[in-house]
């Protein structure tokens, strides 16, 4: 809910700056390891955006893949979720390197 409110504030600021009165769609980039459920974000955003410039706006969520550096393998590996093992060696000496971002990319508005 808190993150949805942050998103709404970014959208409201952009709308005010650009003199836009209605946001039709919004693109969010949410990393696979950002610990944000896309469905929860949709639900919360719909709730917080009610009565705002973004009321009823369509939310497009672009997922970026999780990556980690495996110290054991000494290479970059795909990681689908935090707490999962290295897909090559099965170990957990992993340092997350990508897929934690949460960004507002763009919006369609008039």
């Amino acid at each position, binding site marked *: 809910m*808190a993150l949805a409110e*942050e998103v*709404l504030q970014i959208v*409201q600021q952009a709308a005010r700056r650009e003199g836009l009165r209605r946001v039709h769609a919004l693109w*969010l980039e949410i990393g696979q390891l950002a610990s944000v459920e896309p469905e929860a974000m949709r639900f919360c955003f719909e709730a917080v955006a009610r009565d705002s410039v973004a009321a009823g706006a369509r939310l497009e969520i672009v997922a970026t893949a999780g990556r980690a550096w495996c110290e054991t393998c000494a290479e970059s590996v795909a990681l689908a*979720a935090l*707490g999962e*093992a290295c897909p090559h060696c099965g170990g957990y000496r992993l340092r997350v390197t990508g897929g934690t971002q*949460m960004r507002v990319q763009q919006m369609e508005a008039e």
Partner: protein
Amino acid sequence: MPMCSTCGCETGEVLIADGNREHAQLHASGVPHGHDHDAAGAHAHGHARMLRIEQDILAKNDAYAARNRKALAERGILALNLVSAPGAGKTALLVKTIRLLGEGYPICVIEGDQQTSNDAERIRATGVAAVQINTGKGCHLDAHMVGHALARLDPPQHGILMIENVGNLVCPAAFDLGEACKVVVLSVTEGEDKPLKYPDMFRRASLMLLSKIDLLPHLDFDLGCCVDNAHRTNPDLAVIGVSAHTGEGIAEWLDWLAQRAQRARAAGCDTAPASAHGAAGPGLPLERSRSA
């Protein structure tokens, strides 16, 4: 509806109280705030268009956090963000820590709870300064609220600032407050799999305090399994078992704390501009005039 520009709270919902001024309201205190309003520009264009934004969702919070962090560093203060599920024993642990830490490190506390000032009162009973933030419906502290609380607290140079977050292992993980590091408290009365259920929090913490370990003989809790789970999410996580009740493990925790506080002091001496030294140094971002 007017919203606070960082925390999204409705106007007047967040309360910050230092025990001297009763429940003074953040938004009623004359602090200038940026407030968002729902009505965008009035002129219509009629055609939808794409607008690139490319902004981190937490960019505003992170900017406040950076300001807090810089100000704390300039004063050589070690700031810790204490996080846990509700009831893990953060406040009891803090009270014990304050009693045993002694005079060497001036300590002060920011307490975060949705309601009541009970925890700040427990801290003040030990003789140290504490500011209570009531987040209302909010489930976490953010850097903006902490900035205001710091202005009230005016933490002493070369001390330790403990920020006790709202009991919640989800949202507080995402909101940087400007702390040196997060300390996650997990009580042995909870499940061993909590680090796997809430991996983001454990990934972002530097230390896990396993609390209430005096209860271990009465429980099925598998300590080794819990630590393994925590290390799956964060291989570098330090772990100390503690009991605020018996004092077990507290010496090790105080050592950890003292080492970090020493480092913060040394760094503060290296980097602080001359003006930031002294008890009322202007280094904190926290003066009202700069809080907008």
